């Protein structure tokens, strides 16, 4: 059961349905990010050990270098997905 905050939610785009669609797309975007991170962990563990177990994946903690690399990846990934939002601005800046 998702907890929902009490209070009126503004409508941002043409109608509430379009807003919902964006929320769904962003949730999906988030889940791809989660998936990527998990795969990344598996790949790194495979590389180190050649053996795989769920506990190993759960216990894995990225070091500062990996954390940085992952942040970098997420930043690029988000920029890729949301490129369309910034295109308007780029066009305007070029005008």
């Amino acid at each position, binding site marked *: 059961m998702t*907890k929902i905050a009490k*209070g009126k939610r503004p409508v941002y785009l043409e109608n509430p349905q379009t807003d919902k669609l964006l929320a769904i797309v962003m949730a999906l975007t988030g889940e791809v990010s*989660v998936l990527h991170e998990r795969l990344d962990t598996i790949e790194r563990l495979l590389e180190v050990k050649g053996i795989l177990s769920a506990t190993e*994946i759960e216990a894995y903690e990225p070091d500062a270098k990996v954390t940085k690399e992952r942040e970098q990846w997420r*930043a690029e990934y988000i920029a890729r997905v*949301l490129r369309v939002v910034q295109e308007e601005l780029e066009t305007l800046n070029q005008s």
Partner: protein
Amino acid sequence: MMDQQFQHAMLPQPTHDELARQNFVQSLKMHIFRNISPGNKVIYEKLGKPKFEQEHQRPPQNRYEIREVMQHEPYYRWTSALKRINQEMLWDAVNANVDRQLPELIERSKDKGNELGTLTLDPNFQIPTHQKAVDIHCMPGGYHSEFTDDDVAAGATYDRGAYVYGLGWLGPLNDDMGLSIVQNYLLPEYPDFRPRKILDMGCSVGNSTLPYTDGFPDAEVHAIDVGASMLRYAHARAEALGKRVHFSQQNAEHTNFPDESFDLVVSHILLHEIPPPSVRKVMQESYRLLAPGGMMIHVEAPLYRHMDIYTQFIYDWETANNNEPFWSAVRDLDLVPLATEAGFAADKVFEKFVPNGAWKAKVSNSGSQGTWFVVAATK
């Protein structure tokens, strides 16, 4: 960029995927902040402002007039939609973690051992109406709701949520507000000020309270909030960190402490979460509670008169879009007259910008990256 939050015994511990979800929320926030939000200035200068000028033969004169044109700009609406969704995803990502671990966290909160401080809840406590209308900053249940017996969910959600929300900018213990006031203001500017009793109003999880126990080790430190769930967590958190604080469930507008019983009364970003009449009452209560020679310090983000109108417009986004009903009403106030009306002498009331980032100075050579605004007074 994102330092690690300090893993004390009460902090929820995410699974691999829960943490990945929280990481995504932070990266999305960073992207919006760095790459999308600033574009609204360009949209305003190149599209919004010319449209307004064409229609009115003058530039916009206040934040309302800027909003009037900007609300029709698709770029601004997309920014707002993404910001709002980002905020909803934040609480979702933190709540999933807290709910899974809640029974364990409740157990841990009951393990009192050798207590340093105390917790006093009031079973008859009335949550102020102004807190019940909407859930502040879209955090489901706000600061005050209880979902189960002996609940600590609000506290756990806030502690982790505040860290993820701010990308760790308040430091590993979320304590920068209290720490900066103590380290960058009170100790250097008032080296002889040794408060014996300190009160933190609207303490939430006590994140800003604890630095006062370190800065003034001989002081008796009290902290109040309206939420029982918040306070149970705050108490357990303080105990886990080995700090002595007396938490009680009280409304800062009218506490049960005797007159003149404190030497220092503080609050940290409390004022913008309550309506202006309540801000007045908090000032009056601060005055009543202070002993002669005592000091009041209320910490806030800047007020509207500290900003140009475009910045005001950007700030004002929070009001309707992030469930912050009093955010703008309070930023429109001049807090100095409120303090003098509460009883403080005009020449003893002052506003100040205190350097922030005291937590950073503890771990590196880099310190302040900005300021905390304070309205303060001595009695």
